[in-house]
């Protein structure tokens, strides 16, 4: 956390909407730029971190940063309209000013992943925080091994980042695979769960770091499957979500057993959340 305008971490910074790109129906990427040049210069983040985004008169919600950390001038957020605040946010127009606080939380273990293969598993909107992983690794291609991206959606329409995925697939040593729970005409990916994609991958794809983001049952199923296949638990990372009011570890809403997801996460080694994940109500 670096760029807060003053000592008040509750107070948002003004950020201008530079672009609002519709990725899929109800899913938009907002490209924001901090209006104050000093704040802009001070802003640095790592993949996996999130911001608290604020829409005037409506409210504030946590949203992952989906752009490349190498470019901190434009900060991308991919938002799915699911409720009050997010529905308002996907409608903002270039030139509008929003509030931004951040970055918050832990990032992906990019340092540990150096020199190794990376398996990225995402479900639904989960690809937002993991997108920055892929971009980060691609931008530093020599430092990482093979990159495999498995993306699961409920229905083909939910597939976002069409163009980005295409670019990723074209990149050297990168595979992208898709699974949709519902079939649809023209769907070329698998019909089924994202866990099933593990069978389609080249065996070495899972022999590196695994980074996951998406619905908890999905992440748990994949993680347990990887453990069954003999992968060490230290190599599996997940990104978690809970309601957050402050992002600072004060509001208590993201309480998760011994952790606060906002500051101890959102990216956790699977080991750390494995005990509570199957328990309903945490």
């Amino acid at each position: 956390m670096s760029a807060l305008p003053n000592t008040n971490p509750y107070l948002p910074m003004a950020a201008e909407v530079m672009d609002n790109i519709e990725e899929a129906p109800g899913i938009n990427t907002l490209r924001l730029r901090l209006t104050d040049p000093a704040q802009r210069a001070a802003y640095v983040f790592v993949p996996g971190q999130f911001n608290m985004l604020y829409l005037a008169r409506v409210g504030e919600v946590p949203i992952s940063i989906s752009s490349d950390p190498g470019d901190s001038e434009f900060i991308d957020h991919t938002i799915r309209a699911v409720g009050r605040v997010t529905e308002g946010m996907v409608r903002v127009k270039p030139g509008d000013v929003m509030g931004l606080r951040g970055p918050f939380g832990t990032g992906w273990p990019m340092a540990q992943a150096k020199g190794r293969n990376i398996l990225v598993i995402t479900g639904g909107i989960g690809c937002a925080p993991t997108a920055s992983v892929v971009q980060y690794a691609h931008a530093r291609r020599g430092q990482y091994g093979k990159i495999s991206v498995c993306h699961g959606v409920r229905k083909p329409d939910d597939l976002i980042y069409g163009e980005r995925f295409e670019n990723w697939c074209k990149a050297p040593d990168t595979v992208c695979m898709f699974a949709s729970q519902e079939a649809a005409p023209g769907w070329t990916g698998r019909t089924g769960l994202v866990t099933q994609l593990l069978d389609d991958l080249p065996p070495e794809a899972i022999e590196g770091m695994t980074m996951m983001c998406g619905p908890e049952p999905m992440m748990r199923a994949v993680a347990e499957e990887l453990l069954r296949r003999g992968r060490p638990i230290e190599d599996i990372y997940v990104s978690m979500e809970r309601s957050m009011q402050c992002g600072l570890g004060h509001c208590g809403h993201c309480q998760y057993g011994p952790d606060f997801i906002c500051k101890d996460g959102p990216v956790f080694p699977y080991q750390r959340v494995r005990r509570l994940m199957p328990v309903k109500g945490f």
Partner: protein
Amino acid sequence: MAMARIAVHKFSSCDGCQLQFLTLEDELLQLADRLEIAYFIEATSETGDGPYGKYDVSFVEGSVSTPDEVERIRKIRENSTLVVAIGACGTAGGIQALRNWGDLDSYKTSFYTMPEHIDALPTSTPFSEHIHVDAELAGCPPDQGQLKYVINSLLAGVQPRIPSESVCLKCKRDGNVCVLVAQEKPCMGPITRTGCGALCPHQERDCYSCFGPAETANIEAMGRRFIGAGLPRDGLVHRLRFIYSWSPPFKAASERWLAGQADYAPLPTSRTVTPP
């Protein structure tokens, strides 16, 4: 963007919900600058496109208690983009739903010389039993702060989120002394939806649930607590059958109690009470 056109309609009610608009003072004038109050017969003689004109938002107060009102709400629904039900009547049938357990004919004959001309349905029901409503705002009357929040949300084009928790949170935030714990008054706050501003405890009396059940309500435990406070069974049923008698949780619980199906062990149980 063209100004949103709103309508306010009255059904069986006391008028109190509409008054929540008319007592906004300066803010009513501010509101009139931001949207068009097209149909609101208590406020204006200009009646827009009539009761069944096309409006962006129709606020409906009151309950549905006559055959004619069933027709009216259907037509309003057809002609409105959004329908927002306000008040205890609009969201749960209101206090007049107390008649829903009685025999309408006996009600009529005991009061009217010409009962055959009384055009009433046997029940007083909320709008949601007749049409799809887009948002509901509970309370008898609804809170002005919440009403303003809903209007502001609609103007911003986003969904309102009304908290579903108990009155007790607000009661404590305001520093009131709990009338149940300190005075053994049968306060309904623990099972009542927040919104009023914990008015009753502030007035040093028990809440009688004019905002209806909280989503978190454990009505059984509340009843056992009231038994612990010495409330007789009919008193218990009256607590539930008051302003929100027809809300499904209160209705079901009152029926269970009347049928003697509820667990009657008083709370706090002797097990947890240490002698002083």
